[in-house]
């Protein structure tokens, strides 16, 4: 009899532990469910809208989440054949390219100097450059509108190439400074002993081992410029010069009529890739802006 209880006990313990784990999971999932629904439902609804036929979209007596007419790609088709969507994509890509290029050209040397060269005031300079990230566009957009018209760039996407680096340079300088600090000094010293100058050491030794930082800076040049709406709205009003978010928001409406299907299609086609890329780098963004204060 005694042997039976001894044998049964571990099984029972395992069973209660399992039951406990299951109960814990159920509770956590229940707690997370409302957050999930609130976060994801709007996006799901956008997807459904984007691939529905118009007649199906406006049937209010039926369940809106089902398809009574076959899903369609015609909303996407419409974007490319009857709007300037193609131009907007080209503009967005071109803006991202130039903003990334300018950001790297300016932020890499600055981040390196702040992290490596033991300059007087480098701490204050670093914080000073980063703080400009916090000066909100809403205070700057009116004077910048004047700057843009002085440069004769109004109604051209080049105006955004000039303005977006004010968002990306402060952030990326700060981010790259952190990256450069993690590169061991010895590598650099060895290179300099081997006859590289300071610049040679940066280009040939430090930069190649800091490529994850450089890639991260490029990603943020892209995602941070994609989050903007204000500058694009204020500086670009010619249809074929707009970046995608502005174009979709302002050009797919005729008077009071909204082309919801195409609106959602156009918004998602660019929004989803941006969100996915940003998702992977979100932790870097958070530590970038807050890490300094939390660590």
């Amino acid at each position, binding site marked *: 009899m005694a042997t039976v209880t001894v044998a049964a006990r571990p099984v029972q313990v395992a069973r209660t532990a399992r039951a406990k784990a299951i109960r814990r999971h159920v509770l956590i999932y229940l707690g997370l469910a409302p957050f999930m629904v609130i976060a994801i439902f709007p996006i799901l609804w956008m997807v459904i809208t984007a691939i529905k036929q118009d007649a199906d979209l406006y049937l209010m007596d039926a369940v809106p989440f089902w398809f009574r007419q076959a899903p369609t790609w015609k909303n996407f088709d419409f974007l490319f054949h009857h709007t300037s969507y193609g131009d907007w994509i080209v503009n967005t890509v071109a803006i991202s390219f130039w903003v990334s290029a300018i950001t790297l050209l300016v932020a890499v040397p600055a981040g390196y100097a702040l992290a490596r*060269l033991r300059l007087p005031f480098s701490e204050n300079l670093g914080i000073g450059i980063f703080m400009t990230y916090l000066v909100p566009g809403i205070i700057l957009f009116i004077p910048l509108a004047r700057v843009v018209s002085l440069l004769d760039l109004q109604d051209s996407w080049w105006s955004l190439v000039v303005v977006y680096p004010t968002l990306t340079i402060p952030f990326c300088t700060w981010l790259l400074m952190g990256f450069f600090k993690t590169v061991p000094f010895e590598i650099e010293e060895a290179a300099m002993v081997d006859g590289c100058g300071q610049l040679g050491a940066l280009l040939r030794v430090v930069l190649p081992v800091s490529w994850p930082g450089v890639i991260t800076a490029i990603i943020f040049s892209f995602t941070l410029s994609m989050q903007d709406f204000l500058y694009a*709205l204020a500086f670009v009003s010619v249809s074929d010069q707009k970046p995608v978010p502005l174009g979709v928001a302002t050009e797919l409406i005729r008077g009071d009529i909204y082309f919801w299907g195409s609106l959602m299609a156009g918004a998602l086609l660019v929004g989803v890739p941006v969100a996915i890329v940003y998702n992977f780098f979100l932790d870097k963004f*958070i530590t970038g802006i807050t890490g300094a204060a939390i660590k």
Partner: protein
Amino acid sequence: MSWWRTPTARRYTFGYTLLAPAVLYVLLLVGAPFLFSLYLALSDASTGAPVAHFVGLDNFRSAVETSVFYTALRNTLLFTVGAGILKGLLGTTLAFLLLQPFHGRKVIRALIVVPFTLPIAVSVLGWKWMFDSQFSVINWALSRLDLIGPYGSASWPVWLGQPGLALLSVMFVNVWRGFPFSAIVLLAGLTSVPPEILDAAKVDGATFLQRFRKVIVPMIAPILFIGSAFDTVFTLSDLSIVYLLTNGGPDGATEILPTLAYNTGIRGGALGRGAAISLFLLPILLPLIFFLLRALRRRQY
């Protein structure tokens, strides 16, 4: 050997040369425009007139004299504080849930942060469609749950067309976008709390409430403040939610300072008046920026 040829001097020259482009860029395109906005606010500059005259505080005075300005100011404060509190509460709850180890945590986390990572104009368009006056999917769901009447009945709320509801709706979209950010910031801070501290408190016989008040709250409060400060700066400077959903309507009920500044300065062409209106945000922003500056300076070098 003269001083400027010493290795130290050469390092300084090299270093400041590398820094110069960044410093110049932000000075020219953030610093100068900021000063320029102070000047504009004191002038009668407009998009049409090439020459601006100094008008003193007239722009501020005439802004303050309109009733829409007060609505905008009140809405801005209400919006920022109300949405801020909600984001803090939801973000904290979510952060504690996501802190637990469970299956599928990474996937769930990745999905929940999508509102923050999606470009803001994109998601606001989705919300505009969900708040549509005739085909709102929210109303459809509410009517199926028997909370409101059938389609076409007067009980269907017009989310963006009724003053009070419209303000709540734009606030809700801001909360929807911001709560994942609060949660992730808190999560980053909480994971940096060494679990030994919590375990030690547990061994010492502290109850959950005691641990919460004495250990967890003092640790998360500073992080929550920093997250909220960043979020408030983002919220105050964002016009896209209100601009795209209501453009300040109905009848100015959702007007906030950013939309008022845009409509006055860029649409209306009164650059001076617009600049003055946006500068009213400065007294709210400056304390936040100073707070963040202090937090950043505590960084260990």
